[in-house]
């Protein structure tokens, strides 16, 4: 327990110390001390703001991430299974993958209008890629012996998909989803730079634009904490999903 706490806190404490030193020594306007940031944090992120700005943002974040995961895995499976389809679609997908959100968002607005759907689409447009790419690679790497086993025992259709393809790609899918989760947070912020008047991302950007620097950092702190919290939850889910995978590894070491 104590060791876990040490794991959790040691490096953050060291980094906070370093930050403190840096901000105290340089006295830069854009670099307030951790103390100031902490004090501002308490002040800024009260219950009201949490309810009005943060919760709706988290809602959209989770909605977008879920949607992105479902689409990413579904498309990833299809593309992973068909080399032909992959060859056809890959250049177009790669094209869109390279388009930066500030350029892509206006395009999405053009097609969807300015609304929550558009914000979800922005989040999906970013977090889908690591999930898609990892799913494709995971599906391509399914053990050929298992493929043969399923073929000759007539395992096909939904069962084939769920017991063979998705399960064996799951370590890679999880890697992609872990990536996608933090990208979803980033894009939640970016989506609120357009056509918003509330939200966590909007609030942070507004602080930044009005030179409310400790407030801005307190928002970034909140983003980081949010990311950490979600990743802990994700870790719990992952441990369940990849139970067998970790088991295989532990078994070989006799643990």
């Amino acid at each position, binding site marked *: 327990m104590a060791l876990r706490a040490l794991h959790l806190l040691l490096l953050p404490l060291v980094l906070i110390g370093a930050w403190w030193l840096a901000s105290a020594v340089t006295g830069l306007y854009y670099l307030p001390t951790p103390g100031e940031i902490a004090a501002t944090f308490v002040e800024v992120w009260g219950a009201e703001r949490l309810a009005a700005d943060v919760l709706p943002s988290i809602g959209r974040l989770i909605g977008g991430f879920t949607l992105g995961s479902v689409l990413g895995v579904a498309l990833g499976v299809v593309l992973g299974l068909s080399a032909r389809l992959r060859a056809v679609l890959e250049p177009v997908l790669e094209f869109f993958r390279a388009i930066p959100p500030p350029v892509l968002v206006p395009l999405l607005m053009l097609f969807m209008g300015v609304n929550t759907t558009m914000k979800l689409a922005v989040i999906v447009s970013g977090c889908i890629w690591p999930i898609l790419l990892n799913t494709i690679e995971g599906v391509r790497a399914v053990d050929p*012996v298992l493929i043969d086993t399923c073929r*000759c*025992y*007539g395992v096909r259709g939904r*069962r084939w998909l769920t*017991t063979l393809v998705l399960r064996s790609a799951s370590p890679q899918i999880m890697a992609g989803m872990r990536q996608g989760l933090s990208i979803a947070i980033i894009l939640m912020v970016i989506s609120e730079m357009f056509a918003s008047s509330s939200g966590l991302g909007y609030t942070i950007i507004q602080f930044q634009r009005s030179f409310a620097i400790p407030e801005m950092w307190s928002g970034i702190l909140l983003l980081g904490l949010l990311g950490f919290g979600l990743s802990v939850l994700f870790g719990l889910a992952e441990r369940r999903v990849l139970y*067998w995978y970790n088991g295989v590894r532990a*078994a070989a070491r006799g643990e």
Partner: protein
Amino acid sequence: MLDVTGLQKIYPGQQGEVEALRDLTFDLGEGELACLVGPSGCGKTTLLKCIAGLMRPSSGSVVLAGTSVTGPPPDMAVVFQEYGRSLFPWLRVRDNVELPLKEKKLPKQRRRELSDEALDAVGLLKSADAYPWQLSGGMQQRVAIARAIAYEPRVLLMDEPFAAVDAQTRADLEDLIRTLWKRFSMTVLFVTHDIDEAVYLGERVLVMSSSPTIIQDDVTIDLPDERDQINTRGEHRFAELRTRIYAEIRNASQSATAQPQEAGKAH
């Protein structure tokens, strides 16, 4: 039942092609139990995969029960040589066995019956709830066997299925296969390296030559139908057959292990 005609398989590759099978022709009657022996790397696994419809031959044909094999035919079970990798690590032993039965749409209770029976037959009922990676090599191999027999196939292809089990278990499993074969009148093709095993088990033993691979010999095992680990193996005829096949294999594998220039002489 099973007609293999002029089968050839060439693997493409960056450093040139490999001709794993040159020209194989043989047939198996309905309900026959044939064993396949041949030197390491002569193409037994390749042949099995072609018969199972998992691999497309370069030329020649496989016809099973009148229809040409292009994909895995129904009612066929395969025990792969790479038994460890053929088990699903995310499924418990029982679920591994029951997976094909689910696909057969058997009711839950029937599945349970079949898997219990099969696991019991291979001595793994106690490990039904373990994951494959919690088992020893031999136990994993037996799970793969249990899966195949629980499936109650009409055609059973086994690729060195007893390679990882101990002598006693092996003997028990041999008898199990013969019992099941008789009970369900399956057609069985059984790859083994153990010549005694081939003679003990089979009605016929097909001997494959080393590459370029052909069927070098097709030996009918004229031992009585009722076999018994101690008596059958003690019979004079058993020893004769064994010696004959041993000599064939010796020829075949010498050409494989020997220097290239000697390879030609063996034939």
